[in-house]
């Protein structure tokens, strides 16, 4: 019984050895532009070659499922916890064993079974038009459904995972029925049909099409760093508001990585993950994409610092995945396109 | 003076910048069936298109029932002329049934009158019961009759027929021409046919205008064109025949290689004038007893009779009809004689 797999593995090893040096295959929902420099650095340091395929997290997950035992994937990188949870549910992940990772990443940013880990944190606050909105009127995500904001909110489509995760966190806090009512209230307050990405929502506020937008912080960070005058104008017109500071905290999500069950290069995969939480890699993330590091010792970029500090929702992020399906369906029902 | 329906006065036309009709005049009486006969390229189709309104006039006027249709400064649009037209390529609307094609120009008629007119025309052209067929389901002859009915339906003041039979086979062509004549006569529509085929013209028309190089050579009944052509061109164009040298002898007689012939009326030439005598094959008869002998040089069996080609002693070759059972061999000398009442005489060339 035990003999066959060993022989098989040996044969496979023999077959593959002369063909390829050490490598690791990454399915990434992160844009290669944002991750590639980091991977190059890793290749230089370790000599391990990184193969990257990028795509939407859902597509990559479906692919890993379809590929089954034959999958070439070692790691699945996503930009949210929900998809990592889905991957876990689908049974395509396995626990990561690394003391280094255990030490460096806070527990709430890690799957309880350690099948995935967070690599960066991203927050999803409210941005408002400085000239048209009195920030003292803002309080919570829930309060966005007040009639005060009728026709004044810009937010992207419900097919986007960031909104799905936001709704999932609210299901955890307020229950499904209340969240569905909230989604309906949001739809009623939309300034326009959901369209475009987070940056588009920020631009729309600056241009006056709406007064409030819900957006991840790093989109704002990119505008801050932009050399283009029209982007600078957007930044000047907007300010950030951290909602729910008096209760559970502002909704945060992670970008993270899952360890694929049928990984062919497990050692290299863990090696890559450990590299990603090194101080320099974390600082790089913060610097290049304005995300919050998971490692507390890592330095923040000046841009991030300028947004101020906030209290984050302490929810274990696995919950975002558990509630995802319910979140999607209730937003569908609420007519959030 | 008779009233006239179509009047064409001093009309000149160009086709692609080339002058094709010069100062042509022509008039048709009401209910008359006219014909423009001429070789291809003589400008007759261009004239027809000018009457229909698809061709501007360079000079002259076209009138129909005392209404000015066209002049260099005026052109009634085709749809307001009251002129119907039957086309060479038939031009039935393939997406409409027979009845819909015929009724096409009757848009503003009341439904019942329209229906009655369609039935009447279908009956007239002998195609009753075909109303729901589509053009592609009909034979060429049937299609052409439908096209005729369609053009006649709105009761135009003038019907133009542009070589309507040329797409059909020879046998059908002659038959259809007579049929169409009968139909038009019974409806009393003034019509103008364009053709290059003299048989078609004879079958169809009351009067034929032979057109050559942009003007009318002669406008006459078929009989007169055939037997009293005004020019050698007309004589040759309306049927086969040959010129024979002759000399005028008296006021009513000429001397020819086949003897002295007398005319039924006075000749326009003084005695002693050398002339050309035009002889058609039916003027020369094969007669074994004749004193005039000729050499048989060609023969065409036509069933009921032979068309012989005979060479006279002076070298002239003439056509000659002979009864079918008079079967002579080529090279034989046979007797021929002239049987002419009216002489066709032109000045000698």
């Amino acid at each position, binding site marked *: 019984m035990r003999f066959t797999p060993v022989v098989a593995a040996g044969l496979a090893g023999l077959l593959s050895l002369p063909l390829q040096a050490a490598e690791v295959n990454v399915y990434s929902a992160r844009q290669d532009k944002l991750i590639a420099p980091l991977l190059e650095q890793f290749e230089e340091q370790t000599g391990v070659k990184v193969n990257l395929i990028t795509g939407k997290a859902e597509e990559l997950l479906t692919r890993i499922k379809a*590929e089954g*035992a*034959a999958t070439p994937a070692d790691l699945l990188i996503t930009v949210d916890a929900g998809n990592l949870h889905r991957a876990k549910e689908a049974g395509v992940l396995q626990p990561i064993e690394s003391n280094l990772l255990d030490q460096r990443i806070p527990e709430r940013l890690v799957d309880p079974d350690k099948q995935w880990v967070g690599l960066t944190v991203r927050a999803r606050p409210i941005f408002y038009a400085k000239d048209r909105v009195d920030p003292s009127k803002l309080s919570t995500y829930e309060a966005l459904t007040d009639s005060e904001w009728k026709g004044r909110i810009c937010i992207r489509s419900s*097919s986007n995972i960031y909104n799905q995760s936001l709704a999932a966190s609210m299901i955890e806090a307020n229950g499904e029925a209340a969240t569905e009512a909230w989604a309906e209230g949001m739809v009623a307050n939309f300034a326009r049909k959901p369209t*475009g990405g987070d940056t588009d929502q920020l631009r729309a506020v600056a241009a006056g099409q709406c007064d409030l937008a819900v957006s991840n912080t790093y989109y704002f960070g990119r505008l801050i760093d932009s050399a283009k005058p029209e982007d600078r104008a957007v930044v000047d017109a907007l300010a950030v508001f951290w909602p729910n500071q008096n209760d559970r905290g502002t909704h945060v999500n992670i970008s993270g990585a899952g360890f694929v069950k049928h990984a062919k290069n497990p050692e290299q995969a863990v090696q890559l993950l450990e590299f990603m939480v090194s101080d320099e890699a974390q600082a790089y993330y913060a610097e290049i994409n304005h995300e919050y590091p998971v490692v507390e010792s890592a330095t923040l970029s000046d841009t991030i610092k300028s947004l101020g500090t906030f209290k984050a929702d302490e929810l274990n992020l696995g919950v975002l995945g558990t509630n995802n399906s319910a979140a999607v369906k209730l937003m569908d029902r609420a007519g959030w396109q | 003076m008779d009233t006239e329906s179509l009047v064409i006065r001093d009309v000149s036309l160009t086709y692609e910048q080339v002058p094709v009709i010069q100062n042509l005049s022509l008039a048709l009486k009401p209910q008359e069936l006219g014909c423009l006969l001429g070789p291809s390229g003589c400008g007759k189709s261009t004239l027809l298109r000018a009457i229909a309104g698809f061709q501007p006039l360079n000079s002259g006027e076209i009138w129909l029932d005392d209404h000015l249709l066209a002049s260099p400064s005026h052109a009634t649009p085709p749809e307001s002329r009251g002129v119907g*037209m039957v086309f060479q*390529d038939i031009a039935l609307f393939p997406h409409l049934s027979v009845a819909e094609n015929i009724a096409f*120009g009757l848009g503003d008629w009341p439904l019942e009158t329209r229906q009655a007119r369609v039935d009447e025309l279908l009956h007239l052209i002998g195609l009753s019961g075909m109303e729901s067929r589509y053009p592609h389901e009909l034979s060429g002859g049937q299609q052409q009759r439908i096209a005729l009915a369609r*053009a006649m339906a709105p009761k135009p003041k003038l019907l133009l027929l542009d070589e309507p039979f040329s797409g059909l086979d020879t046998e059908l062509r002659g038959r259809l021409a007579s049929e169409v004549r009968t139909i038009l006569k019974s409806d009393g529509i003034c019509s103008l046919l364009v053709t290059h085929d003299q048989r078609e013209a004879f079958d169809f028309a009351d009067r034929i205008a032979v057109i050559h190089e942009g003007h009318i050579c002669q406008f006459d009944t078929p009989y007169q064109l055939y037997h009293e052509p005004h020019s050698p061109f007309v004589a040759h164009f309306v049927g086969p025949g040959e010129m024979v040298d002759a000399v005028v002898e008296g006021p009513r007689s000429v001397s020819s290689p086949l003897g002295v012939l007398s005319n039924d009326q006075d000749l326009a030439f003084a005695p002693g004038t050398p002339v050309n005598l035009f002889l058609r094959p039916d003027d020369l008869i094969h007669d074994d007893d004749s004193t005039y002998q000729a050499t048989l040089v060609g023969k065409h069996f036509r069933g009921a009779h032979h068309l012989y080609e005979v060479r006279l002693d002076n070298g002239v070759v003439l056509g000659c009809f002979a009864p079918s059972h008079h079967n002579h061999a080529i090279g034989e000398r046979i007797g021929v004689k002239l049987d002419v009442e009216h002489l066709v005489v032109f000045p000698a060339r």
Partner: protein
Amino acid sequence: MAIKNSTPYSSRLGRYRPNGFLMTTVLAALCVALPICVVLGFLFVGESEAWSHLVETLLARYAWNSVLLSILVALGVIAIGVPAAWMISFYRFPGRDVLSWLLLLPLAYPAYILAYTYTGVLDYAGPVLTWMRSIDSPQWLMDPILNLKSLPGAALMLSLVLYPYVYLMARAAFLDQSANLMEAAYTLGQSRWAVFRRVVIPMARPAIAAGTLLALMETLADFGTVQFFGVQTFTTGIVRTYYGFGDTTGAAQLSSLLLGFVAILVVMERLSRHRVRYYSDRLRRLNQASQYVTGVRALLLQSLCLLPVLFGFLIPTALLVTWTAFYAELQSLWQLTLNSFALAGGSSLIIVTVALMVAYANRLHPSRWLSYLTVLVGLGYALPGVVIAIGVLIPFASFDHWLSAQLAFLGVPPTLWLSGSVFALVFAYLVRFLAVANGSIFSGLSRIRPSLDQSGRLLGLSQTGVLREIHVPLMRGSVLTAVLVCFVDILKELPATLMLRPFNFDTLAIKTYELAGEERLIDAAAPSLLIVLVGLLPVIWLNRSVSKE
């Protein structure tokens, strides 16, 4: 060699037949049938968990949006294509020849690229609207621009790139109409407008319908545009169900519904095409009815004809060129171009080879069942890429898992022999684009007289030899056209490529889609521009062959 003269040509040669040509046809038909059968098969496996959610909340929306989009696109392509064809066919004015050609150019654009480009420039915060606000333009003027990312917007984008189908067909139909027919109508007392309404349009109607139906098939197959504009149609629904809910069964069932819509279009297209054929060959062509127009009226005609070209080609191309020149990061483009060209080139060669063999099989062994198979092969073009991808992924993945299990004892590591390789992609392209190649190859082959084949055989060539030595050289133009059209179609293809591409393999279309998805519309300009420029080649080619005829 006592061969009786009465023996039919085909069976005489049939004695030596290698069955390769027939086998290829059967195989090609099976290829096309595979995704259809797989997708339809899922109708019988019962409801999935997500299905009830779909039926309750989304199905009606998908169906309604798909139908509404189709109606708007149909109106759009007719409203642009028919008047353009009318002006080009019945009037002569300065620049007419150039315009008749320019009007085809939008065909080079995939609708999604047009959508990305216009979004990039017509955004609320973009230059056009910012300028309009600065001059205090009225709201009703800005609202439609603001709402570009909507169903009517998607219909507009699709109409702008798909109207050439209608324009081409209508123009051919107008040119085919005998001038005498129009003159006959005039002599029957009809005004110019009545002639247009009662003769010209009814006669061209089957051709217009055929062009419209082609445009509608493209509309139902479109994924990139509707996805980007957030219009929920069947294609986006299928992709969302497959990826978002991870529900293969639901996706396949949605695919069968979409297939139902397509089937209706296919039947309508066949009917209308049948009538087109019968209309055009009975009449003598006489295009002398054109009217000379000069002065202000000529200027009006020129402007009207230029309008669709302007919005469907010139403006977006100018934008793409500008963006490419100023912003593009060109280094990664090389690899993408190489991938795209290798994939499109290789696939189109394979597809055209298969098309040649199918056409040749029909020539050698004309029979009823073979012509049915050929019709089946032609259906692939009507299948939306999403449906093909689903229908190919499911069986291929099963096969891979089965094969891996069988080979496990040999120590062969589990491998995705079919679904993880370029093979799946080439297979999907074959299914979708074989009909495109067939069209050109069949018409090319039909122009070669059978007596040439017979002389070739008598002079000692084999069947394959006849194909190689006589047919291919004689129909070089048709073969080239087929390769070119397939090449460009593959280059533009998005949904199937998206779902089936192997590991580490991006193409220009994929990159464009991804960049646009990340709102980096300006970075998407360079790959977009490349797709459009290559897409121009067959358009130019097409126009040459049309004007030659």
